[in-house]
């Protein structure tokens, strides 16, 4: 056979036969099938067109008026605000703070905005807002617990007491029991900074809170007399200085991992000092004197009757924090030695 290139026209095969035939040539069953197929095709096309139109409309609406998509259903206006809290905040305050429009439906609420409104009050640590259809807004709140007070003034306003939480957040306490507030010591010598009308969190409050809670649990009698917790030497030396009615200056060391020992020593020192009622302790320094197995605590005893001016006066702490109170004259400390801790006492 020749190996020359083929010049014949391509051979026709049965596949070249047009398989489509006119409906007239079909049997009734064939026409039924054709109709069913056509209806099916039309339905699918219609569905596709409908979906396409829906997407087009949605895009158009999103570009022009996104709120229309966000709140597609005009729901029933919010009737109930359901508050769940682990603290003291009241429903009235929450409702007032949320300031919901009267006719606002549940789906129209911008929960993020409402959440921000609530979090503006520092008393709230976390908040979860959820819709409960048809007309209830559920507010779940986790509140901060105050560990101390601080007195500060903003601008020309009168000085005012604020509460400080364990994480250092400063806030106005609402709905707290006044007795509870009154039992909290003041923070002193704190540098407070304002940012956007709010105080920035105070550094070192975690240590302060730890000290206060240890004292509150283990030496409640002494803790009740604590008036001021000074952070003047916190940044430089890591010391927390507490001023109380019994001892004018107690120095704690935050670098120690455990406040428990320091609190225990304080209790023993105060007990020793009570044996000399004519010369009460003026200062107790728990930051030094530690040695293996025993402790030597420098204690300065009063030499004269207690003056009326200094430690009872509360410092005004704000943008101009009060300076630590100066000692009138250096005195030679008395060492309380061989103080051995007996855990059973606590």
């Amino acid at each position, binding site marked *: *056979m*020749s*190996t020359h290139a*083929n010049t*014949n*026209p391509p*051979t*026709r*095969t*049965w596949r*070249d*036969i047009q*398989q*489509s*035939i006119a409906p007239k*040539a*079909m*049997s009734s*069953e*064939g*026409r039924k*099938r*054709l109709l069913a*197929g056509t209806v099916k095709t039309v339905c699918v096309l219609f569905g596709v067109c409908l979906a396409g139109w829906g997407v087009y409309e949605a895009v158009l609406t999103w570009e022009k008026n996104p709120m229309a998509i966000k709140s597609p259903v005009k729901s029933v206006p919010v009737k109930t605000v359901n508050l769940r809290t682990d603290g003291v905040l009241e429903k009235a305050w929450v409702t007032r703070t949320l300031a919901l429009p009267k006719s606002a439906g549940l789906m129209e609420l911008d929960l993020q905005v409402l959440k921000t409104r609530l979090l503006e009050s520092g008393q709230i640590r976390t908040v979860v807002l959820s819709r409960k259809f048809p007309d209830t807004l559920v507010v779940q709140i986790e509140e901060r617990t105050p560990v101390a007070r601080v007195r500060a003034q903003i601008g020309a306003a009168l000085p005012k007491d604020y509460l400080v939480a364990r994480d250092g957040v400063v806030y106005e306490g609402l709905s707290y029991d006044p007795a509870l507030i009154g039992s909290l010591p003041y923070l002193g010598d704190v540098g407070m900074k304002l940012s956007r009308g709010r105080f920035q969190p105070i550094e070192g409050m975690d240590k302060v809170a730890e000290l206060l809670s240890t004292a509150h649990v283990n030496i409640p009698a002494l803790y009740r007399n604590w008036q001021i917790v000074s952070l003047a030497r916190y940044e430089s030396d890591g010391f927390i200085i507490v001023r109380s009615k019994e001892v004018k200056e107690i120095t704690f060391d935050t670098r120690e991992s455990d406040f428990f020992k320091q609190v225990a020593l304080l209790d023993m020192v105060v007990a020793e000092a009570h044996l000399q009622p004519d010369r009460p302790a003026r200062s107790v320094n728990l930051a030094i004197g530690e040695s293996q197995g025993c402790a030597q605590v420098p204690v300065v005893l009063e030499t004269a009757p207690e003056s009326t001016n200094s430690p009872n006066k509360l410092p005004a702490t704000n943008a101009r924090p009060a300076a630590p109170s100066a000692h009138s004259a250096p005195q030679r400390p008395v060492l309380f030695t061989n103080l051995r801790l007996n855990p059973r006492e606590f």
Partner: protein
Amino acid sequence: MSSRTKYIGAVEIGTSKVTVLIGELSQGRSLSIIGFGECQSRGVLKGAVMDFRSASDATHSALLAAESNAGVRIDEVYLAQAGGHLDGFYNEASVNVSAADNMVSAIDIDTVCRLAKAKALPDGRMVVHNIRRPFRLDGRLVPDPEHLVGQRLEVGYWTVHGQENKIADNIHVIRGFNVPVAELILTSLASGTMVTSAEDRQNGVLVIDIGGGTTDYALYHDGCAYTTGVISVGGSHLTNDLSLGLRLTEGQAEKLKLRFGSGTVITRDKSEKVWLNGDFAIGDRQFPRQAIEQITSARVWEIFEVVKKKLGVSFVPERLTAGIVLTGGTSKLPGIAEAAAKVFGVTARLGEVPGYINENLRDPGFSTALGLLYFGLNSSAEAAVAGQSRRRNGFFSRLFANA
């Protein structure tokens, strides 16, 4: 229907009956026969549609019966093609292997195949099948010459072609049911695949499918079909001969054929007679049995003679180790295998479908429809393998193939 399941219909529009089988093709790999429909054929003469409406009605009735039997709708049809208009010719081509190292490439194979198929047909004729014979590389038979070394590559094609309008009529009958025709398969190839084993086809076998209006045959050598053909004589001619010879109606002749017809003359007693109906009613009469057998055997003998003549030089008894296999409705005639053996001079037997086929479908009349389903399964499996191959030959596969 799951996306991986397809319902295929095998349709044979014969001269005497229309047969439909429905197969459930799962994952393109397994096939279950789930429906069957049969209807007496109308409007079909010698395998060709003569009355479109009647043929459509008969075919659609069978399709509906099969669908209702299976409880599903057919997705596509594998259609058997018969008819006296079908013809075939052999054409071959050869090329010199183009590579300098004489290694046969895919391009060489493609070129030689294209040349072998490029035979112009007369107007109004179109190809039904191009059946390739084995390649020959420097004279030796090779199933796949790619990457083999040789100088001259040859291949031949047996091209089956038919009259365009008759093929179109056949397809349009199915399209009238609004189902696409996926494949058109020669009746003899369909039934031949079913009643012979691969070993038979390798050793050489002649399959003769004697239907109602036509007789289809396919000669296999070396595992592939060498020659096919159709003659427009079938079982209906036996009936017609009886009708003319014994002066009977067509129905009466058909009855006699089914009851007493034979491929060879067995009865030696000329006086032995048989009753037409056997109910002793008015019109019931007797006929000599030997006469019936002589008439039917003469026609059967003639059919085989015509087939042998049409095969011509292609028929070499020595190369027909597996002999002759008879199938089709008329092959149920007693003594027909003996007649074939005498005419062709080789062993002959009745075709049997594989054992896994249901007992109800083991009749020789179903071998074509079963073969169509077999083709459907094979083409789906090939498509699945081709799909996997395409995936395997993806960009990354090719990228790392040379690594």
